[in-house]
C-alpha cells in the first residue's frame, strides 16, 4: 500500500464529529476492532457514551452496530471465533483487563435483546432472577420491593399486578419486552444496552417502549441499536452512524438528522441507500 493510499484509508476511517463530545462520559471506547475469525467486522471505532443520555446506533444491516453494542458488556465473549482489540472503558476502567470480572461487568451493563426473551418462569421470577443471583435482596420483602419497583419503572406493573405468578411467556410481545427491560433494571445497572428492542413489536407497543426509554434516561445511560431513523430521532440525544464496520459520523441527534456532515450519512438518512 502506498503512502497516499494509506492516507486515503486513514481518512476514510476518520470519524466525523458533528458537535462536541458528551459532557459526562460514561463509557469511552478507542480503536475498537472486532474480528470474526479472519474477517474484520469493526474498524477502529472511537465513541464516547454519555452519562444519563440515550445514544442511538444507526446504519444499514451488517454495518457492525450490534457487534459494537455487544462489545460494551462483553457478550461477544460467548462467540468462540470473535476477537476484540482496542480499549473500552467504563468509568475509566478497562473492561477487557484481566482483573475485570465479566459477570460483575454484565450486572453493571445490562442488556435487552431484539426478540423478547423472558424465561419460562413466572413474571415475578423473571424480574427476581438477577437480584437473586447477585444477592441484591436481604429478605423476601426486599426482593418483592425490587420486583415491584422494577415493574413500575418499566411501566408494566399496573398491567400484571394481579398475575405476578403466571408465566412471563404468556404476555403479549410488547409486555414481554417491557418485562425484559424490568428484568434488566432490577439488577440496578449503570448502562442499559438495547439491541433493536422494538423490531418485533407493533407500533403501539413500540410507542410504549420508547416512552419508557425516555423515562429511563433520568437514571441510566442507554445505548440503543435501531433500524428506524424516526425512533433514533425521537428517543436519542446523540446518534452514531455506522457503515461497513466504520463509525462514519457521530454527534447530537438534532444536528445529525438536520445537517449531516458526511455524504454517506446524508445518503442513508435521506433513504438513498441502506
Amino acid at each position, binding site marked *: 500500500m502506498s503512502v497516499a493510499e494509506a492516507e486515503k484509508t486513514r481518512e476514510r476511517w476518520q470519524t466525523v464529529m458533528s458537535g462536541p463530545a458528551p459532557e459526562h462520559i460514561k463509557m469511552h471506547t478507542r480503536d475498537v476492532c472486532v474480528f470474526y475469525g479472519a474477517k474484520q467486522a469493526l474498524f477502529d471505532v472511537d465513541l464516547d457514551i454519555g452519562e444519563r443520555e440515550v445514544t442511538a446506533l444507526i446504519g444499514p444491516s451488517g454495518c457492525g452496530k450490534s457487534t459494537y453494542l455487544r462489545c460494551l*458488556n462483553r*457478550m461477544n465473549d*460467548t462467540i*468462540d471465533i470473535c476477537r476484540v482489540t482496542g480499549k473500552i472503558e467504563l468509568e475509566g476502567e478497562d473492561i477487557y483487563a484481566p482483573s475485570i470480572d465479566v*459477570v*460483575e*461487568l*454484565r*450486572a*453493571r451493563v*445490562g*442488556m435487552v*435483546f431484539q*426478540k423478547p*426473551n*423472558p*424465561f*419460562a*418462569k413466572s413474571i415475578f421470577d423473571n424480574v427476581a*432472577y*438477577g437480584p437473586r*443471583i*447477585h444477592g441484591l435482596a436481604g429478605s423476601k420483602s426486599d426482593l418483592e420491593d425490587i420486583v415491584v419497583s422494577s415493574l413500575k419503572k418499566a411501566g408494566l406493573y399496573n398491567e400484571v399486578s394481579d398475575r405476578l405468578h403466571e408465566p412471563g*411467556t404468556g404476555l403479549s410481545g410488547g409486555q414481554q419486552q417491557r418485562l*425484559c427491560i424490568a*428484568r*434488566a433494571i432490577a*439488577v440496578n445497572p449503570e448502562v442499559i444496552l438495547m439491541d433493536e428492542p422494538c423490531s418485533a413489536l407493533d407500533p403501539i407497543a413500540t410507542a410504549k417502549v420508547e416512552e419508557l426509554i425516555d423515562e429511563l434516561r433520568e437514571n441510566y445511560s442507554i445505548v440503543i441499536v435501531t433500524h428506524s431513523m424516526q425512533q433514533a430521532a425521537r428517543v436519542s440525544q446523540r446518534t452514531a452512524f455506522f457503515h461497513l464496520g466504520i463509525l462514519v459520523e457521530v454527534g447530537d441527534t438534532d444536528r445529525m438528522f438536520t445537517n449531516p456532515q458526511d455524504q454517506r450519512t446524508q445518503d442513508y438518512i435521506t433513504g438513498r441507500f441502506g
Partner: protein
Amino acid sequence: MNTGLLVLAVLVIAIAGFILGRRHSLVTANGDIRNLHSLPGYHGQSVFIFAAAPALLLVCVWLLAQPLVIESRVSSMIEPSDIPSGSTLGLVMADVRRISDGLDVAVAQGALTEAQIDNMRADLTDVRSRLADVGIAVGSNVSQNVFLAAKEFRALNGIGRIAMAIAGLALALAGAAFAYSRITPRYRARNVSEGAIKALMILSSTVAILTTLGIVLSLVFETVHFFRLYPAQNFFFNFTWNPQFRGGSDLGIIPLLWGTLYVSFTALAVAVPIGLLSAIYLAEYASSTVRSVAKPTIELLAGIPTIVYGLFALITVGPMLRDYFAQPLGLGSSSSSVMTAGLVMGIMVIPFISSLSDDVINAVPQAMRDGSLGLGATRSETVKKVILPAALPGIVGAILLAASRAIGETMIVVMGAGAAAKLSVNPFEAMTTITVKIVSQLTGDTEFASPETLVAFALGLSLFVVTLGLNVVALYVVRKYREQYE
C-alpha cells in the same frame, strides 16, 4: 412359478406400466408438460401403483389363506386309525407336509419322475427310505393313507400356486391397463401418488402398533395360563425363588424384582451424573474442536456389544471390587455382585444419557442463554436455572431410555451379578434379575406346560408393567416441572 418370481413379474409389469404411463401422458399433452395437471412422473407412478398394489395385496392374502384351505381339505383324508397312539393329527399333518416337500425335492433331483410318484404306493414301496435317499427324514413309517394325503397335498399346492400366479399377473395387467386408460391431461395423478404415500405410511404405523399389541396379548394369554397353574398371590408375595424340576417350586417374583431394581438403580446412579455432566460440558462449555472429538468417542461406548461389557465385569471389575472393597470391608467374598453389574451397566448407558441430553440442551434457544448471561449470571447459574428446566423433558426421556436399557439388560447381569436369586441389601452380594431368570427358565429341555416354564411370561409381563409405570411417572414429572419455550 414360485412366489419370488411372481412378485418379480408383477414388479416388472408395474415398471413397464410406469414407463408407458409416463410416455403416454406426454403424448396426450402433445409433448408439452405445461398442459398436464400432474408431471409425467406422477402419471407413471399412478400406473405403477395400480399395477403393483392390488396384485401384491392379492398375493399376500393368497399366501395366508391357501395353507388354511388346503390343510382343512387334506386333514379330512386322514382317518383316526392313521394316527399312531400317542401322536396327534397335527404331528401327522407335519409328516404329510414333509413327505410332500420330499417328493418335490426328489423330482427336482431326478430321483423320481412324476409318473413314478403317481404309481407309487406306500404299502408296496418303502417311501421312508426312498425319501431318505434324497436327504429328507420322515419321523415314522408312512402308511398308504398318509402317503395319499401327501400326494393330494402336493397336487393342491401345485394347483394353488399356478392359480395364484395367474390371478396375480392378471390383476397386475388389469390394474395397469385401467390406470393407463385413465391418463388424460387433466387426470390428477399427483393426488393419487400422494394418497398412495399416505396409505403406505398408515400401513407402516399399523404394523408397528399391531406388533406391540400382539406381543402384549401373547404375554397376557400365557400369563393367565400360568396363574391357572400357580396361585397369583404366591407369585407376587412369596419371598423365595426356587424352581424345581419335579413340581413344588417356589416362584416368588420379589427377589428377582429387587435384584432388577437394585442393579438398575446402581447403574443409573453411575450413569446419570456422569452422563448429564458430560452432556452439559459438551453443550455449554466445550470448544467445537473438543466437542467434535469427545462426542463420538463417548458414543462409541454404545457400540460395544454387551457381552464385551460382561467380560469386562467378570474378569476386571468383579475381582477388583472384591479385592479392594468387599473383602477389606468385610462385606463378602463374591466377585459377582450387584455393584459389579451396576457399575459396568452404568458405563454402558452413559452415552444414552449424555448424547440425548446434549442434543436437547443444544435445542434450548440461544436467546435464553443470552438473556441470562446478559443479566450477569455465570454459565453454571444459567445452566442450572434456565437451561436444565427448559431441557427437562428431553433429559428425563434420556434417563428413561437408559433405565429401560438397564432393566432389560441380561448379559452383563449374568456375568457380573451372577444367577442366584437373593434378597439382600449388601451391594457386594451376588443377586440376579428378572431377565436372567426368564432366560434360564426357557432354555434347556423344558416342557412348555409346566408353571416353571410359563412363569417366564408372567415375569416378562411384570417387567413390561414396571417399565410402563416408570414412563407414566416420568411423564407426570415432566408435565409438572417443565418450563416450556416455543
